[in-house]
């Protein structure tokens, strides 16, 4: 465990802010999928760069936690490195790249390929928490829609997609229905990851720092991606497998390898990929 280098409170936030967030989290968990307003603070990273996720992580993190931070599925992307270092300095907690070792995983835009267990908490960074925002810009209006359980505008939008494109034209931040009541934005994870939300063993927490909303999905909760009977929800598929580990099951990143546009595909989840390679080496 690293020594805490700076004269800040454990995990940076003061206790009053932590209490405020903790109370909001308890309400969020009691009302799955509902966006609870919270008094979000300025953090040392800019709004839009994960302050919501960080405030939630700071509020829940303890001395004995093991923290993993990923961005686009990778531990080594610059912002994931930056956030991991932040908590290493301000909380002195052990950090890891190994999904199975982590007790708290803060993520931007992906859910790990490896299924999570009941002792793990996922914290999602959310840019725009309101699933209806791009259909209806006014917060006053969308609050009313959620209150009345009136998601007509969303169904119309999805139907219009089908009319225009032949299918639903949303590839990420694909809206879901939580516990049969609230329509929720799962953060900009690719729709490929949506099924992982359904009845997960882990607790899922979502933090939007700039918009000052947080929400939650308890473990073992029904989460259904919105669709129509004649246009059921589908996940992405690739014709390729991972150029490093050979997986045909994971979400793949496209890498351009020369200026003629040659391309390769590799696992977005770098830990999953590395573990597969390690395992293959062991069995050889």
């Amino acid at each position, binding site marked *: 465990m690293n020594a805490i280098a700076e004269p*800040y409170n454990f995990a*940076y936030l*003061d206790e009053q*802010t932590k209490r*405020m967030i903790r109370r909001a989290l308890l309400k969020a968990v009691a009302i799955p999928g509902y966006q609870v*307003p*919270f*008094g*979000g*603070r*300025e*953090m*040392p990273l*800019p*709004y*839009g*760069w994960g302050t919501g996720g960080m405030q939630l992580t700071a509020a829940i993190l303890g001395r004995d936690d093991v923290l993993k931070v990923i*961005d*686009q*599925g990778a531990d*080594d*992307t*610059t*912002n*994931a*490195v*930056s956030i991991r*270092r932040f908590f290493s300095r301000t909380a002195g907690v052990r950090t890891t790249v190994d999904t199975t070792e982590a007790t708290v995983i803060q993520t*931007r*835009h*992906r859910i790990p390929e490896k299924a999570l267990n009941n002792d793990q908490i996922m914290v999602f960074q959310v*840019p725009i928490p309101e699933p209806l925002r791009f259909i209806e*810009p*006014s*917060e*006053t209006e969308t609050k009313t829609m959620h209150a009345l359980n009136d998601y007509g505008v969303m169904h119309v939008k999805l139907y219009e997609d089908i009319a225009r*494109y*032949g299918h639903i*034209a949303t*590839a*990420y931040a694909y809206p879901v229905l939580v516990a049969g009541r609230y329509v929720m934005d799962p953060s*900009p994870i*690719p729709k490929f990851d949506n099924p992982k939300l359904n009845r997960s063993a882990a607790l899922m927490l979502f933090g939007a720092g*700039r918009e*000052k*909303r947080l929400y939650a999905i308890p473990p073992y909760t029904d989460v259904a991606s919105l669709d129509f009977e004649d246009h059921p929800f589908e996940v*992405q598929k*690739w014709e390729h497998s991972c*150029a*490093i580990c050979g997986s045909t099951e994971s*979400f*793949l*990143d*496209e890498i351009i*390898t020369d200026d003629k546009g040659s391309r*390769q595909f*590799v696992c*977005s989840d*770098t830990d999953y*990929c590395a573990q597969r390679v390690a395992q293959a080496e062991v069995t050889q």
Partner: protein
Amino acid sequence: MYVAVKGGETAIENAHRLLDQKRRGATDVPPLSLAQIAQQMPLAVARVMSEGSLYDRELAALAIKQSAGDLLEAIFLLRAYRTTLSRYCVSRPLHTTSMQVERRISATYKDLPGGQLLGPTFDYTHRLLDFTLQAEGEPSPASQQGDVRQAQAAVDERAATQQPALPDALHPDADAQADTAAGETGQGFPRVLGLLAQEGLMREETDSAQPVPDITREPLDFPSNRMQRLQALARGDEGFLLALGYSTQRGYGRNHPFAGEIRIGFTEVWLEPEELDFAVPAGDIEITECEMVNQFVGSKDQPAQFTRGYGLAFGYNERKVMGMALVDRALRAAEYDEEITSPAQQEEFVLMHCDNVEAAGFVSHLKLPHYVDFQAELELIRKMRKRDAQAGSDQEQRQETEAGQVPPQKEKRA
């Protein structure tokens, strides 16, 4: 075989080293001191304190130095520091009427008690680059020491004869005396809008006696109240408010503004801690205040009265408070049954986008990797194009078949 890209941590460390170099510039040039910034860039310091929402000149100077002159970055630094400070007291409302006035003007009257005190202002300078400043010598003859002292003496003399005596701080009736001083309109620099109110021509603002919310602790909700709006505007981006204010002047929610009063100077901050029965002064701060006189309202039953917009900022910060006052009034459209037709009048639009720390953060976040979502979009667009191309060629085949020019073939599956 493809090998995954690594090295994010090292890249960041190197980036920080390069930034240190960029910030320092040529090392044969003397480094800036915080005192130089605080003393010689007071208007930059004022902006950073206002939008950073923290009155501390030295910290603002530090933030400006650390951010290499990027004022929005400096504002962000101050806000992030503010987050860590504990809150132990709320001051009493500032009595700007008893301000030690450095500058005070009104566009609504030619002359008035206290007079038009220009103070140090850019207003009547000719915008000609002063190359004597470039030579790093003393400024041009117009502002030689002797003249400055004469001008200041004239200001001081006038101020001394007209300022009310400030109450003795430790006297138990300090409160009452402060209130009385504020209520007096006959001496010093009486409030212009107070003079109009004396005639019954100005809508009075009444204290709602509601607890003052703190938008940094409880997020804004809509519809908002004026207390929340003023807080958001005080912290809001000067450029954004300037543009919105400008838009009202050009007809996007016109409200006929006159600059009733602008005053700049030092005002005392009074605290009333729980342990004491009386208020004590904590020190004084330089602030800029603007009250606009706006479109009058009234009806057959209610006599017509002018309305107002209000702006307040830390330090010497005139453009900001003027923009703020224009937008404050525009956002009161609903209160005065005015039709809401323009952006400056729409509270959600204004209040959700006026914070430049939020705006800069979200705009700049587009620099973060988005390749997973982009990959999802690529997959979708390729699928759609493939399907449309397929449908297109199926269509062609069907047409050719119908025309009898090509023997019938098995239909390809889309």
